[in-house]
């Protein structure tokens, strides 16, 4: 059974082959670490998988029956996929609470204008904001949060989507969620990842910190220059000669 996989997917930027024929399958219900040196194509791959960037050719399979040669970003929640961003993308000049509500309220114009279930939405928002310790900050603008709080707000946004469409959402792509966090915040984020795994979600984790990768991931995929150079359990993949070479040079 596959939940999300790519087949020979390509993306060039000018002459640079950012993603060069990647065929991978993410294991359902596991945490897959996606690692590789800077510029190896990790974030680009995430962008291709989420429709942020169109891919040149190749196919993406979602579940057993969906086969796509392009992805509209707005279909992602229906496909059961969501993500966070390496460069933290929040709705800056909006309150923290609205940053959460917006991902769970109605997606069509009339539905949004005559919104029902306000209490239900607020309850979800309160729950996930408490989970990441931002409930007290709900009326602050996202813009005014500290760096770490902003990272946590992105995590909370994913959690809210998970609460709301729990049965639909199956795959969450985290693009460097730990970067630059204090230890206590790292704890919140890694607990979140494990919680999602325990709920049977497929988690993809882009990360540079090898200790975190070893600790959390069940499976590791290593990219270099847009290609998969190694794959397997963390212990196996990280000990490959090609991987060590890619990170440290010859």
């Amino acid at each position: 059974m596959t939940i999300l996989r790519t087949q020979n997917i390509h993306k060039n930027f000018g002459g640079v082959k950012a993603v060069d024929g990647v065929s991978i399958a993410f294991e359902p219900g596991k945490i897959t670490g996606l690692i590789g040196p800077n510029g190896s194509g990790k974030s680009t791959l995430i962008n291709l998988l989420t429709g942020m960037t169109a891919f040149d050719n190749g196919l993406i399979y979602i579940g057993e029956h969906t086969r796509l040669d392009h992805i509209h970003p707005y279909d992602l929640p229906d496909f059961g996929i969501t993500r966070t961003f390496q460069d933290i993308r929040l709705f800056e000049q909006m309150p923290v609470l609205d940053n959460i509500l917006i991902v769970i309220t109605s997606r069509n114009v009339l539905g949004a204008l005559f919104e029902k279930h306000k209490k239900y939405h607020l309850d979800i928002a309160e729950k996930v904001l408490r989970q990441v310790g931002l409930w007290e900050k709900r009326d602050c603008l996202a813009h005014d949060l500290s760096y770490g709080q902003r990272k946590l707000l992105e995590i909370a946004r994913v959690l809210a989507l998970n609460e709301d469409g729990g049965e639909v959402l199956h795959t969450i792509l985290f693009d460097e969620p730990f970067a630059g966090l204090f230890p206590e915040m790292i704890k919140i984020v890694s607990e979140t990842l494990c919680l999602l795994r325990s709920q049977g979600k497929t988690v993809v984790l882009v990360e540079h910190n090898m200790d975190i990768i070893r600790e959390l991931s069940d499976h590791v995929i290593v990219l270099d220059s847009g290609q998969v150079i190694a794959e397997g359990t963390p212990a196996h993949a990280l000990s490959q000669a090609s991987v060590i070479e890619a990170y440290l040079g010859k």
Partner: protein
Amino acid sequence: MEYLIHLAILFAIYVPLAVSLNLVVGYTGLLSVTHAAFYGVGAYATTLLVVNFGWGFIPALLVAMILSGLLATLFGLILSRFRDDYYALVSFGFNIIVYSILLNWESLTRGPLGIPGIPRPEIFGLTFDSNLSFLILALALALTVYLVSAGIVKSSLGRVLKGIREDEKVLAIFGYNTEVFKLVIFGLTAMMAGLAGGLFATYITFIDPSTFGLNESIFILAMIILGGMANLRGSVIGALFLILLPEILRFVGFPSDIAAQMRQVVYGALLVLLMLYRPQGLLGEYKL
């Protein structure tokens, strides 16, 4: 007294213009400089239907609003290919196109001569002949537009519009087809501008293209920037301020031979000062 009523009517005509443009620029973050085009289409459509076809005020106004909305939807489809500065420039272009058509399609619009003798509104046998009665009508319609806009802003839809302004691509990731939202709000606000156009035409009883050029779009934009982006009350205050300010400057007592120019200078200087010291406008919640 007549003079004050006149100013109040102008205010009531500009409130829907400013409030609706704020929905587009302040909330949704689309820097549209073509609002006067929809204002003009509303004014001309209402006028032509009333004068040439003898339609009643209400049906003419409704059709004029729909025409403005449809035109905006068409423009919006093209504008959806542009962002930021380019969006503003292209919308600029649309205003110039509409203005040129009003000016040059002489068989329909009489071009620069304009259309005189537009009758005052008549609703269910009630004619809004006196300025006071017209003021009541205009205020009622302005209030309606304000309340509809306030409803939009308070609903989840208002939050979605702000989300488009903040990060359209991320909003899309969370399942919103943002193009649809942008088209809807653009069309809806153009209908509000069309309504203001119909009011203006039947108040002044004469229209010509010069009222609906770029200057007018920029004037409305100045109202919402001054009053404050993403704040509806700000737009009302902005409209009030920019209508009253030139009038107040009449009483400053500049020497009569340079009075008109001096008023323009003071007016411009006040705008510059405000932007320097309060860039988000009087009540604004959002900076460009």
